[in-house]
């Protein structure tokens, strides 16, 4: 014990850090901030430190070479002792960190913490969010598999839409004319040196400002932030009703960080590492690329944006979004902090959360993508074939063989790109079906060149049979005689 004391004094006599550290961690904060609502920032920092540790561990084995990265991931998963677990920790850590940073951001936004004098703390935080997302994207690239390869293709295609400097930007991003060795090396340098280095610097700034300006007090309705009086009010608050950060406010941070580390380890141990999926071989064209969870909303938005607005929204949208986040504390740096007095802020947060959740949910099953193997793997439900004429059954064959099923579901199976056709006959007449199939419309390609007249007749006969027995097929009201309206069916010899 005396030896420890002696050593501590020996070092502190030379380092002179003891006193400043003591002062820093014991600085007084408002009692109200010793709350479970304030634990997400410190938890993000904890997970970031874990990411540094596991990331450095991965670098011991991982090879940032396009030709070998995938095999080195396999070695990590299968051969290196605890390799799978380190990979799992790093992958899950990335998810945890993005989630914690977002929760932290929502909390400080709803608590008005970005207002005077903490505007710059928020702005630095916006950059930290962007860096965190940047780490998530570049990390997904380093997991160099099919998804990474085509994800890079998507990134390059977005860059390619930038006017004038699009082509050089694509080459800058890829490090060459195609996605290959230099692309991976480039993303390795970004993921391992550039962004982590900036993260350390910006986290340092962020924390320094939290120390200097104090933790944002729990907002009260009616306690309005004014530039002239806030600093004094805050000083009074911390003096009259303040507690030292360590240990009073720190306890909950400490407990929560511990819980987060345990939760992370449980996730990693139970669910294991992410991928790698198939090898990054572009000649395997059966790939169905999907982004990681946190980019699913973007993937969905890219499928659902109106095509003619897409380029503008892709290029201008992020600029406006990030610009708004940065400008936010400068626009509304004073005034009410309490959420009850800020309905627009609360509704905006809800709107954003609901939109992102809805897009993410859509992204998980991608109804806009044709189901590439539905035509050969999903049989026509037998009840749609029972009691049908030979021509109608032939039409069902055409329906499968021409891959209609890839976009149109029958009996709940098949693509969702187009409408399900279980009751199509109640919506379209035979003539309308023929027109739609041959000429296409909206998102439906025209099949005129790919269907013989016999195939078309059979297909439409089958589609015309798709109606509930209780509901008759649609009829052309302009034709007086119902029989005359469907010559094709008449010719098919209905019993």
């Amino acid at each position, binding site marked *: 014990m005396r030896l420890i004391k002696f050593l501590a004094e020996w070092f502190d*006599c030379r380092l*002179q850090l003891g006193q400043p550290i003591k002062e820093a961690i014991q600085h007084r904060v408002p009692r109200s901030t010793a709350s479970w609502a304030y634990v997400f920032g410190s938890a993000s920092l904890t997970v970031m430190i874990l990411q540094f540790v596991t990331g450095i561990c991965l670098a011991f084995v991982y090879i940032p*070479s*396009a*030709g*070998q990265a995938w095999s080195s991931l396999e070695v990590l998963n299968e051969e290196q002792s605890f390799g799978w677990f380190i990979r799992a920790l790093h992958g899950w850590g990335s998810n945890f960190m993005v989630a914690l940073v977002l929760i932290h951001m929502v909390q400080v936004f709803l608590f008005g913490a970005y207002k005077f004098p903490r505007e710059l703390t928020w702005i630095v935080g916006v950059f930290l969010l962007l860096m965190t997302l940047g780490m998530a994207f570049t990390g997904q690239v380093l997991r160099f598999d099919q998804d990474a390869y*085509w994800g890079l*293709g*998507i990134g*390059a*295609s*977005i*860059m*390619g*839409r930038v006017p004038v400097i*699009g*082509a*050089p*930007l*694509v*080459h*800058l991003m*890829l*490090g*060459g*004319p*195609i996605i*290959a*060795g*230099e*692309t991976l090396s480039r993303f390795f340098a970004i993921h391992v040196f550039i962004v982590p280095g900036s993260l350390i610097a910006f986290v340092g700034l962020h924390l320094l400002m939290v120390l200097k300006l104090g933790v944002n007090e729990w907002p009260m309705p009616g306690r309005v932030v004014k530039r002239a009086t806030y600093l004094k009010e805050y000083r009074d608050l911390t003096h009259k009703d303040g507690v030292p950060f360590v240990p009073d406010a720190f306890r909950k941070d400490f407990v929560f960080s511990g819980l987060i580390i345990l939760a992370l380890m449980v996730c990693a141990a139970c669910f294991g590492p992410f991928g790698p999926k198939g090898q*990054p*071989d*572009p*000649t395997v*064209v059966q*790939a*169905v*690329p999907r982004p990681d969870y946190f980019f699913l909303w973007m*993937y969905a938005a*890219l*499928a659902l*944006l109106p*095509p003619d607005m897409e380029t503008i929204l892709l290029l201008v949208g992020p600029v406006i979004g990030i610009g708004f986040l940065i400008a936010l504390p400068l626009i509304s740096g004073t005034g009410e902090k309490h959420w009850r007095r800020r309905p627009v802020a609360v509704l905006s947060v809800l709107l954003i959360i609901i939109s992102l959740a809805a897009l993410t949910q859509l992204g998980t099953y991608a109804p*806009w*993508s*044709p189901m*590439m193997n539905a035509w050969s793997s999903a049989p026509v439900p037998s009840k749609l074939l029972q009691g049908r004429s030979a021509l109608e059954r032939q039409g069902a064959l055409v329906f499968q*063989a*021409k*891959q*209609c099923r890839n976009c149109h579901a029958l009996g709940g199976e098949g693509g969702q790109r187009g409408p399900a056709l279980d009751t199509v006959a109640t919506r379209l007449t035979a003539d309308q079906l023929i027109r739609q199939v041959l000429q*296409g419309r*909206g*998102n439906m*390609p*025209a*099949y005129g*060149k*790919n269907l013989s007249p016999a195939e078309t007749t059979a297909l439409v006969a089958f589609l015309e049979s798709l109606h509930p027995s209780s509901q008759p097929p649609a009829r052309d009201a302009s034709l007086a005689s119902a029989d005359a309206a469907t010559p094709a069916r008449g010719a098919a010899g209905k019993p």
Partner: protein
Amino acid sequence: MPELNQERTPITISHSDHAMPSRRQMLMTLGIALNAVAGALFAAPVIGYILGPALRREREEGLAWITLGPISNFPEGETRLATYRNPLVRPWDGETGAIPCWVRRIAADKFQVFAINCTHLGCPVRWFPQSGLFMCPCHGGAYYADGSRASGPPPRGLFEYKYTIVGGKLWIEAGQLPTLASPPSLACADQTRRCSCA
């Protein structure tokens, strides 16, 4: 320990302050100038190095004529997958140096060679001979057999390579990832784009 600090506080100025202000100023000015020059000289190659891939005129240098094999590999009236090794490769490119493309043989010496990448966001389109469509697995783009846009978000038809037939072999001009900013060689027919063969 505080004593250490206190020892440092009385700073004695050995020579008179006013004696050589111009010389001190000059040294400072010289320092600023020297470091500005050194900084610029240091930064120029670093920036040039990082921006290298963008500055290099790879649009010109990277493109090369590559053979996809004898034309007899491609039956008339069919569309088949072909792969080639990118002209500019590094030894460590591995599988990524191989690029696929779709070859459609319309008639004896009439071809269309499509890039694999969807014009929307670059995903690999797949050919379905039965329905005569290229379908994209990502956002639901579809193209007709001749590469023209059929449906979905793609802003244009499939990118096409320029091709020629020499010695019974099919050759294409290839070498870069096709995007809207730099489609492969056929874009030369498109007068609005900058390209090598203009």
